[in-house]
């Protein structure tokens, strides 16, 4: 890991920490209030705030996790160079696509 990747990974961790807490609080709120899927969708559809919140979350997770996976690929499987970069980048891209698809499903009208 070099300085750029280190800063990216630590920086995204710092972004994720409060977002994770808020995400858990949202889950508790939704379950305690007994919100139905319809209730939740009524709040999230067309909401720029929720789209931004989870958009940042998904982006931070994709960057953070792919750098972590890159380290694991090097240390556990001995991958180096382009092979490691490609697999790690692909993993990050997959997380990003899955996350953005999930966000689109709940925020797009």
């Amino acid at each position, binding site marked *: 890991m070099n300085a750029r990747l*280190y800063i990216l990974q630590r920086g995204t961790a710092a972004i994720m920490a409060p977002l994770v807490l808020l995400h858990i609080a949202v889950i508790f709120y939704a379950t305690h209030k007994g919100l139905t899927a319809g209730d939740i969708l009524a709040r999230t559809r067309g909401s720029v705030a929720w789209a931004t919140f989870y958009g940042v979350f998904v982006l931070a997770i994709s960057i953070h996790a792919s750098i972590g996976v890159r380290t694991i690929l090097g240390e556990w499987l001995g991958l180096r160079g382009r092979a490691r970069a490609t697999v790690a980048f692909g993993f990050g891209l997959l997380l990003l696509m899955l996350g953005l698809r999930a966000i689109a499903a709940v925020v797009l009208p």
Partner: protein
Amino acid sequence: MWRGGSDGRYVDYDVPQRDSQTVLDVVTFVQRNIDATLSYRFACRVGMCGSCAMTVNGRPRWTCRTHVSKVAKGGKLKIGPLANMPVIKDLAADMREFFQKWQNAKGVFAPSKTRKDPIAPIKPDDPARIAANAGIECINCGVCYAACDTVRWNKDYLGPAALNRAWTLVNDERDAGQGARLAAVSAEGGCMSCHTHESCHELCPNSLNPTASIAGLKRRAMKAYVRGGE
């Protein structure tokens, strides 16, 4: 006791137990009384030179400063060469890569003045001097390198000793090689690869804390990167 090269095996020897006996005494007894072909490395026998480090019951230690009574389990010792280094023969490990990484980490003083210049005044209570002081007693024994999980997993990793040395020089205001040194320790396999397991800190026979030195390097390298100075 490990015998042979990397394809060797552990061989049992019976050695009489004595008072205040060190692990190095045990190894020496075997060589002088049982098998003269046993290869191992030692010099000072008093914890000054750092050449007698071996793996004793799974942990890297200075054998000259390790009493048998403290580490023997049921009267048995398992003694091998240092881990994370190729085996030359028996208990002697090949330390060339270990020392090469000191060079790669720019762990060499780069003078900024000549002998004609006055001696640089450095106060003992200067924060940089205190930081350098904390890591400067390293004697290159390789115990931290053999103990490090990251070295085992990542052959590119410079290791705790080389990075600790780099940190002492980063805090040496007389040194002129800081840019190249920070670039070397910030690159792939540098200080950012440390997982902070602290095995180096736990096992350093000189009670140094290379993990703290590496944390210092991470901070310094991050600042340099943010300022565009990597």
